[in-house]
């Protein structure tokens, strides 16, 4: 066995084992990414970037929960959602880059960094298109429950609609995402009811988190016609939980970011930025 790496003896000469991270692949390998007639490439790229950034940033926040949830089962659930969103982000950022290559940050010549990684790791906070609901720092368990409920409600409705997108690639990514968001929303809805109907303390924490996050809810709606469908489901959860709908006004500044995003990105991007020529 080679002393240089403890893994060398385990691989049996096959260096392609994913568990040790030597190789990644184009998530859209062989997929026809030609922008269809009648679809505006820059608009499609912008839409995919926004949906991809929402998924990437919330995925990073959920990953911060690893080893910190109140129960092992819920820790695994949150990591599972983080992985789903990371997968959606990879596909969406790759789709955005293929539709409009001009959005991809330029790296040193010969850099092996794929387009979706260049978008994830080499943009500044101001270039990210995500909503603030995805980026604000984590709080307690009630906070992640409320955040996931409000986020998943609107993302599921958005992706359901996009299954009919004239762009077949986006439509396929959306159809797959619908299956995943279904159990994200169910999980968050169940815990919302559990916290609301649990102890005085769990209900107090839930209502506090709801008041904190509600002003950011309005920013999730890019078109008003998404509201009717999501309101029905939200009202269903609120009714079962016995929680009144908050009466707080939306926070202004939609489309901008909080300071928390740049701090989060500093940690998320530091290794990739230090090694733009790195092979992983």
């Amino acid at each position, binding site marked *: 066995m080679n002393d240089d790496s403890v893994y060398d003896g385990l691989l049996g000469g096959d260096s392609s084992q994913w568990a040790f991270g030597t190789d990644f692949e184009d998530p859209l390998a062989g997929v026809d990414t030609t922008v269809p007639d009648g679809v505006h490439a820059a608009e499609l790229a912008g839409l995919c970037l926004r949906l991809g950034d929402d998924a990437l940033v919330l995925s990073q926040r959920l990953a911060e929960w690893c080893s910190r949830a109140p129960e092992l089962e819920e820790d*695994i659930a949150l990591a599972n959602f983080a992985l789903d969103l990371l997968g959606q982000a990879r*596909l969406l950022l790759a789709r955005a880059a293929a539709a409009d290559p001009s959005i991809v940050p330029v790296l040193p010549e010969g850099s092996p960094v794929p387009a979706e990684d260049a978008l994830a790791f080499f943009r500044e906070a101001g270039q990210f298109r995500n909503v603030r609901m995805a980026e604000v720092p984590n709080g307690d368990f009630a906070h992640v429950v409320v955040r996931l409920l409000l986020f998943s409600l609107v993302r599921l409705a958005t992706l359901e609609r996009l299954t009919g997108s004239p762009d077949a690639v986006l*439509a396929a990514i959306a159809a797959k995402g619908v299956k995943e968001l279904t159990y994200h929303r169910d999980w968050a809805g169940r815990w919302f009811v559990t916290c609301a109907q649990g102890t005085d303390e769990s209900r107090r924490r839930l209502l506090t988190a709801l008041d904190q996050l509600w002003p950011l809810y309005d920013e999730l709606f890019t078109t008003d016609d998404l509201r009717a469908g999501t309101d029905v489901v939200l009202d269903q959860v609120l009714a079962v939980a016995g929680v009144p709908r908050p009466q707080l006004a939306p926070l202004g500044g939609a489309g901008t970011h909080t300071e928390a995003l740049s701090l989060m990105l500093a940690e998320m991007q530091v290794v990739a930025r230090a090694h733009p020529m790195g092979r992983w």
Partner: protein
Amino acid sequence: MNVRERAAAVAAQVRDPEMPMLTLADLGVLRDVAVQDDVVVASITPTYSGCPAMATMRDDLVHRLTDAGFARVRVRVVLSPAWSSDWITDAGRAALRAAGLSPPVPAPAVTGPVPLTLGTTRRALTCPRCGSGRTSRVSEFGATACKALYRCDDCLESFDHIKEI
């Protein structure tokens, strides 16, 4: 057997890296094998958006086909239709049971807006080890995205259940 059939037979033997009792064909991940201008083109689809095994599946397909004498191999991703646990074959379900895993029941068919489910997910499962119908769910989320953890209330062994999607 023509070239395409030979290539398809080789590809059909490649196993899933996370559940090696299943071939990619049994899992429903291998969608197609074609030969275009001397290039074998194998099409695979991810089980979940974030499935980390896609790169290994691709490498394994390339290695096995190359070893079998196909000089030029390409693996392409197919995103539509999205993978469903219903695509696991009968042979795959038998292999899962033989390995102590519980195969999925039929996935719910959704037409129209996706309904909210606030109740706990309940499934009538049989223990893959002793066949008892008395089982309890331990965790809806498990070792990989596709599994939930259950326990048999008779033989007391825990087992993984492949979730419906």
